[in-house]
């Protein structure tokens, strides 16, 4: 998880089945970028809270509040959750991206945060950039022009 105020660009590279979540408070130009890898924290290996959608989002909200962020003002955007490999005949690997998307959306909804824009699913990796001075979110992929979320 990365956090910045006023200026700077937060970047997370090459999100595959992982998901990047940006939370931005435009009034005080406070931004956070979370990179989660798995849907839910389970007791056994919950060492790094930011690895999981549920605990990662909640811990980031706590941090943002400590920096003066106000939940009702947050602009939230998400990207990633791709299915990088198309597994014929199933296999558990195929749907991890989708399970991440579901968990991120469920957690945000439970926190009362609306997703303003998203670029999720499909079969390619995405680099996500948050410009903290403007709140602009850009998505970089291979072989396509950069898009603004």
């Amino acid at each position: 998880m990365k956090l910045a105020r006023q200026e700077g660009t937060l970047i997370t590279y090459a999100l595959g089945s992982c998901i990047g979540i940006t939370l931005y408070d435009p009034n005080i130009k406070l931004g956070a970028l979370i990179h989660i890898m798995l849907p839910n924290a389970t007791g056994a290996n919950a060492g790094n809270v930011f690895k999981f959608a549920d605990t990662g989002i909640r811990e980031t909200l706590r941090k943002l509040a400590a920096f003066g962020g106000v939940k009702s003002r947050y602009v939230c955007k998400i990207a990633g959750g791709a299915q990088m490999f198309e597994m014929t005949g199933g296999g558990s690997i195929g749907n991890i991206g989708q399970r991440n998307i579901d968990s991120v959306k469920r957690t945000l909804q439970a926190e009362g945060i609306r997703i303003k824009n998203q670029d999720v699913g499909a079969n390619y990796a995405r680099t996500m950039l948050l410009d903290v001075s403007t709140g602009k979110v850009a998505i970089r992929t291979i072989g396509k022009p950069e898009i603004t979320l």
Partner: protein
Amino acid sequence: MSIKSYEEMDGIALDVMREIGSIGTGNAATVLSSLVGQKVKMTVPEIEIKDFNDTITLLGGPEDVVAAVLVQMSEDIQGTMLFLLRMEFVNAVLKQIIGKEVKNYSDLHEMEISVLTEVGNIMISSYTNAISTLSGMTIHLTVPAIAVNMLGGILSVPMAEMGYETDKLMLINGKLILNEVKHDSTILMLPDIESLNRLMSKLVGDYSG
């Protein structure tokens, strides 16, 4: 008496992995030779256990484009195998097998993708066969899947698959020598921890990590 993560493997366990790596590499060189119709040599591979970011640094940058073939293992050993194909190697095998080279990854079409998937599958099977032969364990492999995309995105797939157990990846890194040109050969061998313990108890006997 068992280990809980890759980094807990001791010298004996790593020797076993190195042996699997060497035998697998030997198998791979033989099969690849017959596929490309000329002698393929391989260097003795290194076993490396690294976390996600160090793995990417070792192999390039997160946004570097690579091709990768992924196979899932089931039955006695469960887990994932992934073989990375970089542009130089892609062209070396395409030239030998279908007499064609490409400039960019975007020039890889159905025919080329099919050849690369098969090459990846052969490489991966060479290592799983080595495990089966040494341990007598049965390994069932899924149909291989291929992706051509950012290295970071590709590696996030096995990383997530292993994510509830470990933050480390296990790599077999060596060089393939084709037409006297050295190519990096990188296999990610990722049995789940339970399977790894089963494998070690077969090959080391009273293995206690």
